[in-house]
């Protein structure tokens, strides 16, 4: 059996990040990617939080093909016939940390694959790994298209479905309860038009999340991200919520209806849809993260469930890049010690535990539970809209005082035993 130092299954952000770290140190690394090129099988909403990974391969982020730097954050509560938006634009978003950028995966992943190859790493595309090879409990390599290749360590970064790692007994199969499906259109618009419509300077971007009627009350939301000369407009829905929905609403129709809303349609005027895509997002949280290492292997990125949906922030790509980085460092220390068993490889679990990746996920461990509350997608967005509409409504007959409008709405919609209990729950967010 042919053998390399390290095999990386999947050439997405986690796999390429690991490959970059290893190739930079002269390790013989082979990335096997089933798409025609890195990024061919990847989708983002989406936005990459750069600040958490600024120190990881800092030389890369200066030249990475990022779209727009997000300077305007918008949150929209949607009800039938009404929507309320909170928009935040801060100097800090523009100039200093925090820093996040909208991205497009085909561009980003391909560029990173080129960087890996510049460092001497091998990235083989159009090749699907068929199975993970084991010798007892130890992972010893992979099988692809009838060829077997061995490695001291195999880094499995195959993506959210985790089919290969599941089959190899390294993790549980992906279940509906722990995943959401996101689907979007990329709609081309001239850069100047985007800047006009979203009040942006050149190079600046907006990120908008929609909560409420966009998902017909199902767990999830809508999103809109401005790329350089296109926008990504889409919907995310929990798969469990989708399948048990008594209305049996076709998922793709949620996006069609979203686009037709009177407050959304004008934003798309003159635009041309150029791509339609869908992808699964792990949302099970830290409790559903499988064992991250074992004899001869490490799990990285979405395959390891390393993603976090905290409603207002959605993270996966920064986690993927960080996990790839730590995987590389662990492999380097394993090579130093000439030990590729769990004894040394478990240093990866520890490194991730001490990094922002697992720390953030630990902090957010109650979020999946809280996000199951249907009132977040129905009652609360509706209540916010009812209150705001009332505040701005001037009728023939003199109405209530502003403070009375607020207090009666609060009492009716927000001050119930149920809400109080939910507020207690929210303290954990």
């Amino acid at each position, binding site marked *: 059996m042919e053998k390399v130092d390290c095999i990386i299954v999947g050439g997405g952000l986690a796999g390429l990040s690991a490959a970059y770290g290893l190739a930079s140190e002269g390790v013989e690394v082979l990335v096997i990617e*089933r*798409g*025609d*090129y890195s*990024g*061919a*099988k*990847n*989708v*983002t909403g989406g936005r990459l939080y750069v600040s958490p990974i600024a120190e990881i391969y800092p030389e890369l982020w200066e030249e990475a093909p990022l779209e727009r730097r997000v300077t305007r954050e918008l949150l929209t509560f949607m009800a039938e016939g009404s929507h309320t938006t909170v928009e935040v634009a801060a100097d800090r978003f523009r100039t200093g940390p925090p820093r996040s950028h909208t991205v*497009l*995966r*085909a*561009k*980003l*992943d391909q560029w990173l694959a080129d960087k890996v190859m510049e460092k001497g790493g091998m990235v083989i*595309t*159009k*090749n*699907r790994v068929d199975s993970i090879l084991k010798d007892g409990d130890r992972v010893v390599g992979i099988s*692809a*298209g009838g060829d077997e290749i061995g490695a001291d360590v195999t880094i499995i970064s195959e993506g*959210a*479905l985790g*089919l290969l790692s599941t089959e190899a007994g390294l993790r549980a199969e*992906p*279940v*509906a309860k722990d*995943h959401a*499906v996101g*689907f979007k*259109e*990329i709609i081309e618009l001239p850069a100047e038009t985007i800047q006009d419509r979203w009040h942006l300077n050149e190079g600046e971007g907006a990120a908008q999340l929609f909560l409420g009627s966009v998902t017909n009350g199902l767990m999830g939301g809508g999103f809109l991200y401005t790329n350089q000369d*296109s926008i990504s407009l889409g919907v995310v829905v929990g*798969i469990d919520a*989708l*399948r*048990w929905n008594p209305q*049996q*609403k*076709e*998922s*793709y129709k949620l996006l*069609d209806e979203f686009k037709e809303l009177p407050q959304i349609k004008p934003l798309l005027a003159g635009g041309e*849809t*150029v*791509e*339609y*895509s*869908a*992808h*699964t997002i792990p949302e099970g949280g830290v409790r559903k993260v499988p064992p991250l290492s074992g004899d001869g292997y490490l799990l990285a990125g979405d395959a390891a469930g390393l993603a976090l949906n905290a409603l207002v922030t959605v993270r996966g790509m920064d986690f993927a890049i960080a996990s790839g980085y730590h995987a590389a460092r662990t492999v380097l220390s394993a090579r130093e010690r000439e030990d590729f068993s769990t004894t040394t490889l478990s240093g990866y679990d520890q490194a991730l535990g001490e990094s922002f990746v697992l720390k953030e996920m630990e902090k957010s461990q109650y979020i999946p539970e809280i996000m199951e509350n249907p009132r977040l997608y129905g009652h609360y967005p509706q209540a916010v809209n009812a209150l705001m509409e009332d505040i701005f409504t001037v009728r023939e007959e003199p109405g209530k005082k502003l403070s009375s409008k607020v207090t009666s709405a609060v009492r009716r919609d927000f001050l119930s035993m149920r809400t109080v209990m939910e507020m207690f729950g929210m303290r954990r967010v």
Partner: protein
Amino acid sequence: MNIEAKLGLDVFKIDEESHIKIDNEVCSTVCTTKSCQWVCPANLYEIDDQGNNTVNHEGCLECGTCLMACDHDALEWSYPQGGFGVQYRLG
């Protein structure tokens, strides 16, 4: 723009053999939900005139929603072979 037109925008390298296999016996005996019919963001599942559950694998976006939505293990789902399936140009 209807769903078929949206899929028409994407690049698909079509494998004659489907990467999704449906066990129709399970679909027609055990399953009363049939959530595959509405969860797929590409609307690929359809019950044909003979009452068989079918999937138009050629337009698959490879999200895996159907795999997770199916309660009855009626689907055998693999990644398409290397060089096949959707190839996102933007992502």
